[in-house]
């Protein structure tokens, strides 16, 4: 399917907007120079929040988006409370039982210690700072369980009932705090995703993929929250939303000139040399190319792609044409490191696997960790450009690769030219 000239131009414009936002994220206003130099010169930076590339100018703050500080303080308080309560429950179950109006028995002791262990685990989980949202929800669910347990375990005396009521109120209060922290943490995460240019879970990405999807989504300027963090995602980050759009980034530094690296990459026929899941890429007139991958079970996945930006020695961007098996778009940028210390190669890949069995296959193709595939490919690119080939550890590994990529001998010959 041929795209009209207008839509082709459109994607150039789209890209230029993206490129200038790469250079001008943050709120500093100055003239943007677009990568292509063809258009966009003199365009004002729009000050949008979020950037798609991890290289920052001097004087900027790099912060992987995360929780806000004040939320973290609340969460940290809850975490230590969990640890303290858990320890008390495990070490002094009887004393605590009496305090909340439950008659100590071997049964209550077991229950109390079990709850204590759970408290310790959630406390530790929160302190470890990983996925605190889910830990907070775990805590909230635990509170609900505790309340029902309390209801069944209370003694008959009036004094016991009074103590139990106070305990129930305390648990209820803690539950409210957990609920507040959990929902707040979830909202912060959503805001962060939106700021980074990803659709929120409710919002789905539809229509043909364009560079808009790779670029930060709008709205950052007006809706900028009080925190000043730049929504840079860490290197090698993988982001996915429920809409199915997957985004992978990775960077590597190669001891060759940007011009050499660009020249090798720009011949798309070379890509299977280091992208081992690719079987063949053929190029056609007008920046079009045809990509063939062979996945598990020998199933072929193919698509056509077009070049949407091409700046010799600096940058290549491509995207799949409509009706591709796997909608995808990629950018590679070649950034010379000062003082002749090689060239940074930044790759950004977006892809949207189809639903159903083909989708599962594609997921396998990109492996459980799509970021790992891109990392391995870039490492292989580095090896090919620096040493002329990818080193095999042993004969088994070589056979696996040869089985997968029948073009190896041809690639070998091509890489021989690379190193001269």
């Amino acid at each position, binding site marked *: 399917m041929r795209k009209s000239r207008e839509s082709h131009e459109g994607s150039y414009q789209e890209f230029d907007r993206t490129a200038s936002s790469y250079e001008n994220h943050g709120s500093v206003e100055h003239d943007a120079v677009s990568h292509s130099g063809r258009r966009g010169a003199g365009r004002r930076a729009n000050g949008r929040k979020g950037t798609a590339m991890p290289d920052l100018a001097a004087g900027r703050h790099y912060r992987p988006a995360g929780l806000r500080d004040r939320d973290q303080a609340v969460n940290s308080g809850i975490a230590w409370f969990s640890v303290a309560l858990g320890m008390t429950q495990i070490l002094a179950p009887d004393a605590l039982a009496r305090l909340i109006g439950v008659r100590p028995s071997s049964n209550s002791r077991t229950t109390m210690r079990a709850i204590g262990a759970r408290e310790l685990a959630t406390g530790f989980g929160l302190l470890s700072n990983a996925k605190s949202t889910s830990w907070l929800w775990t805590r909230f669910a635990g509170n609900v369980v505790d309340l029902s347990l309390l209801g069944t375990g209370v003694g008959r005396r009036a004094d016991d009932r009074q103590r139990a009521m106070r305990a129930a109120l305390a648990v209820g209060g803690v539950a409210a705090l957990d609920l507040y922290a959990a929902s707040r943490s979830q909202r912060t995460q959503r805001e962060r995703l939106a700021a980074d240019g990803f659709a929120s879970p409710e919002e789905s990405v539809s229509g043909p993929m364009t560079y808009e999807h790779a670029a930060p989504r709008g709205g950052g300027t007006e809706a900028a929250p009080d925190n000043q963090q730049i929504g840079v995602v860490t290197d090698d980050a993988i982001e996915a939303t429920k809409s199915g759009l997957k985004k992978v980034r990775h960077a590597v*530094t190669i*001891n060759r000139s940007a011009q050499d690296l660009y020249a090798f990459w720009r011949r798309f026929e070379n890509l299977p040399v280091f992208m081992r899941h690719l079987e063949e890429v053929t190029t056609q007139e007008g920046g079009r190319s045809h990509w063939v991958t062979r996945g598990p079970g020998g199933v072929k996945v193919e698509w056509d792609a077009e070049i949407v930006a091409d700046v010799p020695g600096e940058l290549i961007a491509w995207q799949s044409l409509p009706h591709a098996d796997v909608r995808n778009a990629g950018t590679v940028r070649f950034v010379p490191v000062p003082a002749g*210390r*090689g060239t940074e190669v930044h790759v950004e890949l977006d892809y949207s696997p189809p639903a159903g069995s083909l989708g599962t296959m594609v997921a396998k193709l990109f492996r459980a960790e799509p970021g*790992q595939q891109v*990392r*391995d490919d870039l*490492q292989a690119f*580095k*090896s090919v450009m*620096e*040493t*002329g*080939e*990818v*080193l*095999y*550890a*042993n*004969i088994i*590994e*070589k056979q696996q690769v040869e089985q997968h990529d029948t073009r190896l001998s041809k690639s*070998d010959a091509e890489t*021989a030219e690379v190193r001269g």
Partner: protein
Amino acid sequence: MKANCWMGKNTMQIREVPDPQILNRRDAIVKITSTAICGSDLHLYHGVVPTMEKGDIIGHEFMGEVIEVGRGVSNLSVGDRVVVPFPIACGHCSACDAGLTSLCENSNPNSALAEKMMGHSACGIFGYGHLTGGFAGGQAEMTRVPFADFGPFKVPEGVTDEQALFLSDVLPTGYMGAEQCNIQPGQTVAVWGCGPVGQFAIASAYLLGASRVIAIDNVPYRLRMARERAGAITLNYDEIQDVPAALKELTGGRGPDACIDCVGMEAQGHGPMYAVDKMKMASKMQTDLPYALRQAILSCRNGGVVSIVGVYVGMVDNFPIGSIMNRSLRIVTGQTHVHRYMQPLMDLIQQGRLDPTFIITHRMSLQDAPRGYELFDKKLENCEKVVLKVS
């Protein structure tokens, strides 16, 4: 061909394995004439290095004759006699350009795994587990040498196997341990461990201008070798349990100017701290025993240098970072950048200023490698270094 294979904890076995093949254009196949058992091979033997697989061919100290070269190797010919550095290095990345060949960025096919464990990957190494690439080692009749146009060093006429063999690892490793201390004339250097690397570190420290080298170990015959062959003042930590105090006394209260750890991850020692470390290691709460390293740090003079060439693989607890920071210590360490030391050390050997053969106590055939491991490990028959003769 026959090869010495790791078959599980404390088990080596000579097995019949397929002959190596040229897999990359810059490969060569070397027919081994002499190979040695390294102290770091004992870490593999004990099963404390992660990612070992049953059947892995061990060995990273070897030399021999080139019997086949790949299309991309123009500087070697069939029949050349070479000694091969243990780090596999490409010669083209920025680490290799800087002479830091053990940090080669292209020689570890398992660099992704290494990155997960260490943050960044180092080079590939022959016969040293899969974290360093899973390459077949040199305790075999033949081995494949990748990047053969960069690594192997041609042995000059008139130099024997035994003189050249240790250029593959232990000699440059001991030398680098001393060299990176930037020793000034008149200084005192302390060396932990009197295995082969320790012996060479002592000898190198003297070559580099140290006036006194104090060696610490608990094996009498190794301490004797350090005194008689390398010229060290020796301390037995079984006799002197407070090593830092003894070193203080020997250096007028100041401490050694440089402290070199030639022991590594399986250090031995005494006392409750050592017991705690052993328990943590046994329960997998830490991967390395930092006992000797802690002593080296605490002993070193203010503003001195602590050099680590003993092998460590993972994480340790109770690391005296406060001592390092507050006392301006410098930590220098690394897997040896063997390539850059081969020519200068060969020059010293040819000039007769360095004789690396003094550490050899056992000469055996490849077939006897499992017995060699046992002798070396249990320190039987005064074993300091086992050289395996092949073919």
